[in-house]
């Protein structure tokens, strides 16, 4: 078999996750040695349009045009990787779903808002089947490399289904709760090596919520530290608003 044909596609996003690819440095050349990148609009003019072995999708689905486009890409792709928080969990674009769509369009575009159609933000798996996920805002390069290798070996990659706290403790950080601020680490999926807490910030939940989080336990923590529940709920919505679409689907 020849080198697998890979293409990058972007939907509503900041394109930071694609840029992470350029930030890999010289390993990128090793990757380009084993895969054939046929489309990558951000850095390439080449266009392919044919069958793909691997499609890497960045960004959320936010309008009708994107729904059609992602379906078309799915049809011609063997493996589809949702790449980054926008694609995997809706990410910051999901915050739009907090508002009435016409209202937010009017706020941004004025009275002629109907020129700019929009839909409720959706993660890619909420529109088409996704084979692999690389979560993160932005993606964590070592994890992306692991997923890529899993794809090439044709084995599944499962995103860790335990809390960011695990990695945070292993990194021996002072817990943010000890500093008196709320952190989403206890309910957020690990795999980023507790990136934000290592740098003195809190975890904002960009990797999605662990399955079966203990909501009662979480409320206990908040009350223990005098952190209002609304604040945390709002914080969770920063990246995880689209979770509601999954929950409603169940």
């Amino acid at each position, binding site marked *: 078999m020849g080198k697998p044909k890979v293409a990058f596609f*972007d*939907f*509503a*996003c*900041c*394109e*930071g*996750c*694609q*840029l992470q690819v*350029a*930030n*890999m*440095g*010289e390993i*990128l*050349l090793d990757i*380009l040695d084993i895969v054939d*990148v046929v489309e990558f*609009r*951000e*850095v*390439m*003019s*080449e266009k392919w349009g044919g069958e793909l072995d691997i499609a890497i999708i960045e960004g959320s689905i*936010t*309008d009708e045009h*994107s729904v059609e486009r992602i379906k078309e890409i799915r049809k011609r792709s063997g493996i589809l990787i949702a790449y980054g928080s926008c694609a995997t969990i809706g*990410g*910051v674009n999901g*915050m*739009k779903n*907090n*508002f009435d769509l016409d209202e*937010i*369009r009017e*706020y*941004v*575009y*004025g*009275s*002629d808002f109907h020129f*700019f159609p*929009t839909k409720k933000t959706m993660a890619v798996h909420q529109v088409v089947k996704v084979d692999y996920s690389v979560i993160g*805002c*932005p993606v964590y390069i070592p994890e992306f490399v692991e997923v890529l290798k899993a794809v090439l070996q044709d084995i599944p990659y499962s995103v860790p289904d335990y809390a960011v706290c695990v990695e945070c403790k292993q990194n021996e950080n002072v817990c*943010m709760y000890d*500093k008196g*601020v*709320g952190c989403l680490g206890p309910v957020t999926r690990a795999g980023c090596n507790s*990136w*934000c807490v290592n*740098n*003195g*910030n*809190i975890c904002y939940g960009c990797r999605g919520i662990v399955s079966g989080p203990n909501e009662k336990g979480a409320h206990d923590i908040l009350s223990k530290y*005098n952190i209002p529940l609304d*604040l945390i709920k709002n*914080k969770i919505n*920063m990246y995880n608003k689209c979770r509601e679409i999954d929950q409603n689907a169940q």
Partner: protein
Amino acid sequence: MHSDINNRDLNINLEYLTRVEGHGNIVVNVKEGRLETCHLDIVEAPRFFEGLLRGRSIFEAQHITSRICGICSCSHSLASIQAAEDALSITPSSQTIKLRKLLLYFEILDSHLLHIYFLAAPDLLGVKSFVPLIGTHNEVIRRALRLKKTCNDLCGILAGRHIHPISMTIGGFTKLPTEKDLDAMLALLEGMRHDIEATVEFVSAFKFPEFERDTEYVALVSDDGEYPLLAGDLGSSDGVRMNKKEYKKVTNEFVVPHSSAKHTKLSRRSYAVGSLARFNLNYEKLHPKAKETASTLRIKSVCINPFLNTVAQMVESVHCFNEAVSILADLKNTGINPSEEIVVGLNEGSKIPVKAGNGVGAVEAPRGTLFHNYEIDEKGIILNANCIIPTSQNLNNIERDMEKLVPEILDKSDEEITHSLEMLVRAYDPCISCSTHLVDVKFIHA
């Protein structure tokens, strides 16, 4: 070659412009030698950032708005924090300012180098992307990736990562560099010196199209000796000067139907921001090494060839590189005061006093002047938000450039014309996902 340009029909409809950040189309229509349409359509799906900021805490603004754009997320963070601090009347410490400048230098370096190597170089070397260059110019590509990675690592040490910096927040930094970190950053910079020199040489071999159009340039200006990137007033080459609070008078936004990004104008029909604008307005304040580079690359202020924006980026890269080295040396001298480290969060501990206010941030992002403006209530909740992105400011100017360029090259083939237009757009290094956002301005039907 077209023999009869006066009867020439041309129909360019280039969808999904490549090697730019975000989605844009070029639409040009020439009928019997007369230019009828000349647009840069912005078809990026709108993301409604200003809309969705409403109701969120001002302490989250930087985290959210850095997600407007991955390439210049440090600049967005900086502008956002500046606006927030302005609204809250917080004055950052001098150590904080130095560290912020450092981060901005790293980001400008990173962004300019990315543009030079991956976005602009393929055009100038006659290939479609950097991929074929891996075979033909392997050493160049390796150098580019090395440089890119180093910039990324520098931001990583200073702010946790380059894309969506972690530790920079209202009031300062949640994690301050240690002595070891300062040494590590200096070592990384030293390690790239040679590659920067090689990049200057690489750029000096480029041949740029000869095209000029007299343009109004806008950038931050100041009265001190420093090349202003993080502070200053708004200035233009037509002599405008005003406080950043009055940014709306400069940008005069208006909406056009073909673009989900709004357009701007000042004294004339359009103006330009970015490297070339800063170079033209503030040449005197560049680092001596950067001036040397300018003369090596034969670019003189005032330069009105937009294609040479790439050259101005090179000059600025040298400037940022050298300024970063001196800030680090300075910090090593004075030492970092670790007690300035601040605890981020939801401001739950009410460590930072909050009040109602309206604040503006103006920062020279790699692509030009970037404005953030927030209005907050007494609890620090955002009531209104507005972000004006360099690329939106340039869009109108790009179209005016295209209008002048197309008739000048009508004797060329369709492909050549398309390619020239693409190159022109790319020279501005447009950042389209950034520019897709709009505010409450009146819709002006053209």
